[in-house]
């Protein structure tokens, strides 16, 4: 019912949006054969910006007028000097090439012989030319012909490859994706030397024209999955796409769910592992965050380190993480339930000491918990916004000062502080930040349920969450996959992480074309 309600609202909005988009389109017209007219065309179309580079020059003895157009900063100017302008002028004069008179012939000469650039193409459409110039190409115009040459001269300042900030590991590669799409494909290519690796290029954003790559390995990934991802991306119909989060939200299955239906990472090793499993990755220009699809709850609970460390370590860490997930969601609600409804379930001595410390606390346990948990959320949010050195101070001030002061002021009980600390630490132990956020939201739901029905409510909320999770899909793949529907093979790499020699197959749920990873065992 909700879905229908929102869909209805969406439909209404789309029509004016479409109109605006159409207005933004560049008039699809052919280029003129005159350099002057062409330059004028570009100038007016781009609004004569001050970063527009135009260099006109004459070549050959016939004094043909030529021009080079590019956007300053987007192009590698050194390359432009040596490989384009330098070569045109030197080659033609020193090599004493006879420059033909016909403009088309000049163009062909330049294209075929003079320009020593790998990526180069001819173009006659104004729209295509402008798009290319705006993405860092250089246009070479020759007077007398409506064809122009587009030279790939992309070369802007980009961040160096650094260690991923949001996903630190003790053991594992230190490189992370950058904002530059080319760097990112390099990082993946270096790990996946399989000739079947595919980067399907798409452009999203009516105005931003952001380049997007759908990466997968041809005979591993399920072709239907790739098709479905591409179909969903093709429906994206917005002006601008700044971050892969836009893509994620456009193509996700259930926009009302608190759970993330795709994984995002800035670790190339994580992406290559996912590709080899038969998943699809979406790379977007301008962001280091790469999306991995489809995703399951189990996958989000995994960290690459589980595989890099030995299997015993990996298994125990995973168990610890599942425990952390339980604490992150349910520890405040269990506290509320036990303290207000079932003190008989607490060991006697603990019950008395909780009762003693709560003596004089003016609020019921539920209000106390909501207060403290909200404070913790505030601290977390404030710590994120502030620069690093101050952020740490906030943590200390919040943790020690507020916690201690609140206890001695009699606002909360010391046990509550322990519960909050446990909850916070547990939610940081979840490897996927977006999953941890989902858990933080569910925590409040469980707390309300506990405040109304006690442990019964906690169990009800758990059931409600499980119902939702088993109903959820990620690109049509069940979110709780190896749990429900049950796939016993995939359990080897779920809560436990079996030794690497046992992990012979790719995940069953992905319907990979090539299901077997390891053939050593089968040869006999």
């Amino acid at each position, binding site marked *: *019912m*909700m879905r229908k309600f929102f869909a209805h609202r969406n439909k209404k909005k789309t029509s004016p949006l479409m109109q605006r988009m159409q207005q933004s389109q560049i008039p699809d017209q052919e280029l003129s054969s005159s350099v002057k007219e062409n330059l004028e065309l570009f100038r007016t179309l781009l609004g004569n910006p001050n970063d527009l580079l135009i260099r006109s020059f004459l070549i050959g003895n016939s004094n043909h007028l030529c021009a080079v157009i590019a956007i300053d900063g987007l192009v590698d100017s050194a390359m432009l000097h040596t490989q384009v302008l330098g070569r045109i002028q030197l080659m033609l004069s020193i090599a004493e090439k006879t420059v033909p008179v016909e403009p088309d012939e000049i163009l062909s000469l330049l294209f075929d012989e003079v320009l020593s650039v790998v990526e180069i193409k001819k173009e006659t459409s104004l729209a295509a030319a402008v798009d290319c110039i705006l993405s860092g190409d250089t246009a070479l115009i020759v007077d007398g012909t409506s064809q122009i040459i587009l030279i790939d001269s992309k070369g802007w300042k980009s961040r160096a490859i650094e260690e991923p900030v949001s996903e630190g590991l003790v053991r594992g590669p230190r490189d992370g994706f950058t904002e530059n799409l080319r760097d990112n494909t390099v990082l993946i290519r270096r790990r996946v030397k399989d000739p079947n690796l595919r980067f399907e290029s798409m452009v999203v954003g009516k105005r931003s024209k952001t380049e997007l790559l759908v990466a997968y390995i041809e005979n591993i990934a399920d072709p239907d999955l790739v098709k479905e991802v591409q179909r969903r991306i093709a429906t994206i119909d917005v002006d601008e796409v700044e971050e892969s989060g836009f893509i994620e939200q456009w193509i996700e299955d259930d926009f009302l769910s608190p759970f993330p239906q795709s994984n995002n990472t800035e670790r190339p090793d994580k992406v290559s592992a996912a590709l080899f499993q038969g998943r699809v990755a979406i790379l977007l220009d301008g962001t280091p965050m790469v999306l991995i699809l489809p995703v399951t709850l189990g996958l989000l609970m995994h960290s690459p380190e589980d595989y890099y460390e030995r299997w015993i370590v990996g298994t125990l860490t995973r168990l610890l993480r599942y425990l952390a997930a339980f604490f992150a969601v349910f520890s405040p609600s269990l506290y509320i339930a036990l303290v207000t*409804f079932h003190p008989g379930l607490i060991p*006697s001595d603990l019950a008395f000491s909780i009762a003693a410390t709560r*003596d004089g606390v003016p609020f*019921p*346990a539920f209000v106390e918990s909501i207060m403290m948990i909200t404070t913790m959320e505030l601290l977390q949010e404030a710590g994120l916004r502030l620069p690093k050195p101050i952020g740490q101070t906030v943590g200390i001030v919040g943790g020690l000062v507020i916690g201690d002061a609140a206890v001695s002021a009699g606002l909360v009980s010391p046990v509550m502080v322990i519960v909050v600390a446990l909850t916070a630490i547990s939610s940081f132990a979840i490897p996927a930040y977006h999953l941890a956020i989902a858990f933080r939201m569910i925590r409040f739901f469980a707390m309300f349920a506990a*405040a109304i029905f006690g442990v019964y409510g906690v169990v009800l909320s758990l059931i409600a969450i499980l119902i939702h999770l088993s109903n959820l899909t990620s690109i049509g793949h069940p979110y709780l996959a190896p749990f429900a529907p049950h796939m016993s093979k995939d359990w080897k790499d779920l809560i436990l992480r079996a030794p690497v020699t046992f992990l012979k197959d790719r995940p069953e749920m992905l319907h990979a074309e090539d299901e077997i990873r390891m053939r050593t065992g089968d040869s006999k």
Partner: protein
Amino acid sequence: MNRRFVLPCLIALLSALVTGCWDQVQIEERGFVLGVAIDVPRTNEAEKRATKESPGKPKVKERFLVTHQLVIPGGLIAGSQAGDGQNTANEAFLNLTSEGDSLFEVSRELATRTSRAPFYQHLKIIVISEDVARSENGFANAMDFLLRDPDSRRGSKVLISKGPAKSIIEVTPKTEKLPALYINQIGEHIDRNARMLHQVRVGDVHEELLSPFGFVIPRVRAEKNEIKMAGSAVFSNNNQLVGFLGEEETEGLNFLTGNISGGLLKAKVKNDLVVMNIQGTKHTIKQDLRDKQRFVFTIHIECEGILAEAYSLMDFLSKEETKKLERAFAKEIERMCQDTLQKVHKEMKVDVIKLGSNIRQKNYPLWKKIQHDWEDGQRLYEKSEIRVKAKVYLRNIGSINRSELDEGR
């Protein structure tokens, strides 16, 4: 807003809020009852007053004087500011005594006297006085509320006090802040001393009340600052207290029923004392039911342990000497068992060794026939013969063989 959206939300919210929260009580508002002591009122003044107030009220045979021990949590924290009010001694407990016709009545009456309503889920001990237990149906009546109330647990320990039950939970022990926890903890020491009966919990009591046999419940005695939990109270099969067993008799009973998890055994060898630390026992009952009027039971007791203390000078490493020692210990076990049997079999005539239950397990058709003639009717239990055969294995003599030489004496 959309009515289709609001209505379900409202229904869900209301049904949750209207049905929920009904038993919500904050932990600091609960009066944790740790111990309950049930006595017979000494005077009938209160009774007279109540009759004057409402002459038509239903009469009962026996009224109860019930003492509840409530925790004052603030008193548990050393030097805390909580509970400052009237509690100058910084005591962690509060004993409230009330009289009434029923236990439930007393429990509800307490709500008129304390800010924290009684909460029975942490009830540790229930002490019932000898007088209540001796009165007709008194014991079962006293237990009914605690069995029936869903809020009280079946794990609370039940004790019978020699003297007023109130004085048991009113002791002020030095080691613990809460008397009830102190008594509860003593009950756990069953593996240290064989003179203590295995703990009987509310659930066990219920089982015994419903069973056709007699049973025993640990006996407890109060002194000024401490209690002593040794000996046992013997109940007949109509659930009435018939008498007490002393400490040694209780030890004998434990051997007879095979309920020994630790303790010691003294014996005299060569005119000097040797003490064994009991590590475990095994016990089997052999039935000879051929003579329908005179059953013969042979109780085989196997006991193993290590030497704990020896004043007698002998070479414990020699096999013959050890055998002698083992025989001496076995004789001691048999003596204690015979003493116990003398009392429960010959004097009290109560089947606390559960021989009847043994017949029921092994020969059910026979039991069906004789079940009404066991302790009552033809009194087959009384007529049967009970033999005890003990065997002791000394597993270890400790770290040394001798503590002094023969010449030293």
